[in-house]
């Protein structure tokens, strides 16, 4: 190697290679490079965490909530059905009306009053003096743009609506929603739909960039999997009691728990049952439990032979001890289902023909189905997910064993959520599936029509009798509708058993006592406007 020294400011690569190159220069170079890198690193200059400091919170305080589910980075409320995004939107956008979860009554939000002027026409009078976070005034044009967009065929939010809504602007503060036929479920579906500014709806790129609602908190920032919001002090319902909040995705449940215990987080989602004693043992923390709108299901894929055999589905339903699942495996955190909707739904009525654990009856039904002791029945594939819903692997293994005891062989497959999700919505691929379904509202059509109407989602179930009953309740007047659901539709579903409702989920959150008013809603959202931070 040629030993030459160059003092020229710019060197060619060849001259660099030929420069004196020994242990001392290497160590010196490395030290200098580390120093320069540290001083000039983007982190040193940008210091993104400084934005998130809570010192500038005018005495009201900011709180941190940790999400168990990642965000979908498009902030268009129509484009997803992801719970983490729905939770964040819930406090930034208003809806036309809100649901009182205790009384199940509708409360005015952006609509002050509403009435069906014709069976297919709902007229709403809107609140005056409301502005969006960008300062633009709220009015009938925004309701028209939002509802027609959110129920259009190309967006994911459409999943919650029977049809695309047509909205007529009567005046600046009055709209009329027209439907093709009577739509009694509409009133209880509107409280799940965010109202956006017309200008944003007309500019999809802008809609995706940030939230611009009329709600109590305003969009501030999104970076490093963390959403931050600040109080909207001009909120029509009065200023919030918090200066703001941040909502961060933290994948690991142990990390979420530690952050709650150290006081770095105020609320953590999806606490696992074995973590509860640790939270309860800490006098500064509490466990918040809420019975949700979500049933956990054992889905029977109708297009996968032999699952079209009703007697086989019934045999499986009688072979599973759902009390054991809730009491022993979930340690009591859930409620055994006695209907195809959770108790909070309109039309819920406990069904007398709900199958209870009875292995002898299960064996008899299996024989009646044409498979005595399971003979002639091929192995059934049962797929579940691990990593999001609690204890799926544990009760999946129990179900596998219970079905084995009556002669049904199961190939049990536990998959990570993305792989499970892709299979879940396919017509074929497995016979039995574990899934949950958490609608944001409490209208029964959000479950029953979605799952069981004319080749429903996930189940692909299509039965003339069930379709007719769903058509009948979907257009009946509200009181008659409840009777049809409770006395005709739910019993028929329990008889046909297109899917076995296992249990209604309990949402378990870990909460700091510094936020005494915090309570999760049954659809897993939370209203932070009246939550305060008490140091």
């Amino acid at each position, binding site marked *: *190697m040629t030993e030459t020294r160059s003092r020229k400011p710019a060197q060619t690569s060849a001259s660099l290679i030929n420069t004196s190159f020994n242990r001392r220069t290497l160590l010196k170079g490395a030290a200098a490079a580390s120093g320069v890198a540290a001083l000039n690193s983007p982190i040193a200059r940008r210091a993104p*965490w400084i934005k998130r400091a809570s010192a500038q919170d005018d005495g009201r305080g900011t709180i941190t909530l940790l999400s168990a589910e990642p965000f979908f980075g*498009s902030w268009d409320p129509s484009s997803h059905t992801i719970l983490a995004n729905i939770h964040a939107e819930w406090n930034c956008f208003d809806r036309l009306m809100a649901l009182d979860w205790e009384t199940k009554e509708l409360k005015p939000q952006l609509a002050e009053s509403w009435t069906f002027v014709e069976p297919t026409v709902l007229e709403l009078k809107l609140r005056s003096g409301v502005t969006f976070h960008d300062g633009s005034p709220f009015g009938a044009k925004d309701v028209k743009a939002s509802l027609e967009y959110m129920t259009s065929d190309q967006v994911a939010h459409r999943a919650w609506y029977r049809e695309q809504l047509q909205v007529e602007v009567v005046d600046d503060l009055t709209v009329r929603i027209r439907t093709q036929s009577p739509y009694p479920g509409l009133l209880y579906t509107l409280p799940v739909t965010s109202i956006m500014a017309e200008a944003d709806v007309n500019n999809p790129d802008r809609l995706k960039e940030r939230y611009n609602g009329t709600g109590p908190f305003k969009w501030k920032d999104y970076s490093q999997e963390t959403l931050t919001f600040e109080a909207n002090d001009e909120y029509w319902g009065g200023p919030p009691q918090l200066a703001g909040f941040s909502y961060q995705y933290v*994948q*690991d449940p142990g*990390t979420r728990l530690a952050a709650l215990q150290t006081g770095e987080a105020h609320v953590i989602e999806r606490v696992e049952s074995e973590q509860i004693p640790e939270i309860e043992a800490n006098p500064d923390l509490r466990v918040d439990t809420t019975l949700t709108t979500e049933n956990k299901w054992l889905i029977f894929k109708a297009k996968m032979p032999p699952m079209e055999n009703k007697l086989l589905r019934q045999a499986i339903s009688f072979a599973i001890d759902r009390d054991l699942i809730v009491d022993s495996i979930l340690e009591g955190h859930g409620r055994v289902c006695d209907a195809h909707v959770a108790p909070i739904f309109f039309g819920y009525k406990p069904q007398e023909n709900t199958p209870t654990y009875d292995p002898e009856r299960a064996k008899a039904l299996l024989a009646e189905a044409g498979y005595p002791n399971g003979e002639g029945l091929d192995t059934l594939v049962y797929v579940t997910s691990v990593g999001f819903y609690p204890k799926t692997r544990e009760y999946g293994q129990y179900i596998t064993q219970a079905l084995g005891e009556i002669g049904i062989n199961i190939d049990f497959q536990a998959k990570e959520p*993305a792989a499970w999700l892709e299979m879940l919505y396919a017509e074929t691929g497995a016979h039995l599936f574990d899934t949950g379904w958490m609608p944001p509202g409490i209208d029964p059509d959000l479950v029953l029509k979605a799952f069981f109407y004319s080749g429903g989602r996930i189940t692909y179930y299509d039965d003339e009798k069930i379709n007719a009953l769903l058509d009948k309740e979907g257009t009946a007047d509200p009181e008659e509708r409840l009777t049809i659901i409770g006395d005709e539709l739910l019993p028929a579903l329990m008889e046909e058993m297109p899917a076995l409702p296992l249990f209604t989920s309990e949402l378990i959150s870990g909460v700091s006592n510094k936020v005494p008013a915090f309570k999760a809603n049954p659809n897993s959202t939370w209203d932070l406007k009246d939550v305060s931070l008490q140091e």
Partner: protein
Amino acid sequence: MGAFIVRRLIYSLVIILGASIAAFSLIRIVPGDPARIMAPNASEEQLATIREELGFDRPIPVQFVDFVKSAIKGDFGHSAFLKEDVGTVIAEGLPYTLRLALTALALALIVGVTLGTIAALFQDRFLDRAILTIAVLGQSMPAFWFGLVLILIFSVRLGWFPSFGYKGPKYLILPAVTLAISLLATLIRSTRLVMVDVLAQEYVKAARARGLRRRTVVFRHAIPNILVPLLTVVGVQLGYLLGGAVVVEAIFNVPGIGLTILNAVLRRDYPVVQAVTILMAGGFVLINTIIDISYGALDPRIRREMTR
């Protein structure tokens, strides 16, 4: 030397191209549809709209060619989940990971070489056994377990350090110790092994015979001669440090590229997975190239070999 570097660069490019093909195809082969993850309840038509928006509706070879063309221009695509260009995602995450990996490396080097040297000097005595026990324990403890134990003791019980995220240097201590522990164990054992060998060499005995103090012999004659074997160990381990960062960043929720790629894999964020895999492969290759070149700087005998 120049030819050697050029040859290494060509090898590196081939390896990086192979890594990009593997990253691109593997993430698409594993089950999971990003459109379905974004809108679980959406109909097939709605999913088709999302796929079209993301560009995932095109044939995979077409997607790959477009990806390579853009990557050459420095454009690694856009993350629909993070709502940012992938280049920005990496620029934001990389400093956290480098800071974590370099701190862990520094910790492991200082403590590992010191303890390894002490163990060699007191070979087969109590101190040697005690240090080797520490090394075995360090190597046996899984990072995810050790990290959780550190959080439990130093964050939850004692309240000395924060448990997650990164808002300043004190957030780095527990993750760096967790990441350093297995490398520390390797370095103690390697240093001890090489040092025992070096201390038995004739020139060391000769130096002692000339009347030089033991400390002088160790620092002047022994330590410079263990650098090349140690460098090999460090080179290999640096790559594992990047891999280990994925686990450690997940435990401590450090927003580096390790956590970024973990989340990207879980939600099938294709552009991020591709770019970060290539970056990590490139980093691994670069480290090894630098290590190879460094041999020449540290050992004149190898330098002569390279220039032939």
